[in-house]
């Protein structure tokens, strides 16, 4: 349940460390974003000497949330933190590596590049 003002960690090596959600992409009055949704975020903290800088507005894709993800087979999965991966307009990740586990739902949503880079898909 990510909404504007939510801080998220970053799961790739694009250069950003922490993002703050500004907007949930989807309907006009859409309240929350879950795993698999795209958000507009501003970079709150960045690794020095990388192409991305602090207070840059970018798009990100949510990969892990503390709010449970419910599957059709009855499985409920909860992660330990809220994490996103920075993407560009097409949906390709900006970084070259992904850290941590990724939910299987991303494959259905055509984020295949992220899924292929992920060390573990749960």
């Amino acid at each position: 349940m990510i909404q504007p003002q939510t801080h998220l960690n970053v799961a790739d090596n694009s250069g950003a460390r922490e993002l703050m959600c500004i907007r949930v992409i989807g309907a006009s009055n859409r309240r929350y974003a879950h795993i698999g949704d795209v958000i507009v975020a501003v970079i709150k903290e960045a690794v020095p000497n990388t192409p991305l800088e602090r207070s840059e507005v970018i798009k990100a894709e949510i990969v892990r949330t503390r709010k449970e993800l419910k599957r059709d087979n009855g499985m409920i999965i909860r992660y330990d933190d809220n994490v996103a991966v920075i993407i560009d307009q097409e949906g390709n990740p900006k970084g070259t590596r992904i850290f941590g586990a990724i939910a299987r739902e991303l494959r259905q949503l055509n984020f295949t590049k992220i899924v292929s880079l992920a060390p573990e898909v749960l």
Partner: protein
Amino acid sequence: MRLEKCWFCSSTVYPGHGIQFVRNDAKIFHFCRSKCHKNFKMKRNPRKVKWTKAYRRLHGKDMTQDSTFEFERKRNRPERYDRNLAENTLKAIKKIDKIRSDRASDHIKNRLKTGKVQRQKEARKQLELGIHLVKAPLALAQDSSLCLPKIKDNVSQAQTEENQPMEE
């Protein structure tokens, strides 16, 4: 579909039940119900929480080593479907389950045996001391046929037949 074991209480988690928690190092914790999940969030150690299997196994309350446990190992390679194999496995599961539960209950019964004997001894002692509450001393003295029942001992089995049982 896979039947997991709850990380906290070690009961089986069936599909549609419980929550899986994925830690940042990608270790998955399965929980059978919110009770176990909440205990985990409280950072309780299952080895110290009395009602969990972990505690019971650690403190010798439940059977720990048995050959029947070998049958329920986690196997990661899927077996090619074979009708005969599946049929035999199902039959075997039932039998092994019965054997394992019988052995487990025997283990508990043996464990509780010493306590039972102790309690019987104490009850006997109490009866001896407090016989005046049960039967008036005068009546006891008059009717010498009334007396306490002997302990059913293997050694003194012959003596029990001679003495009559006590009135309530």
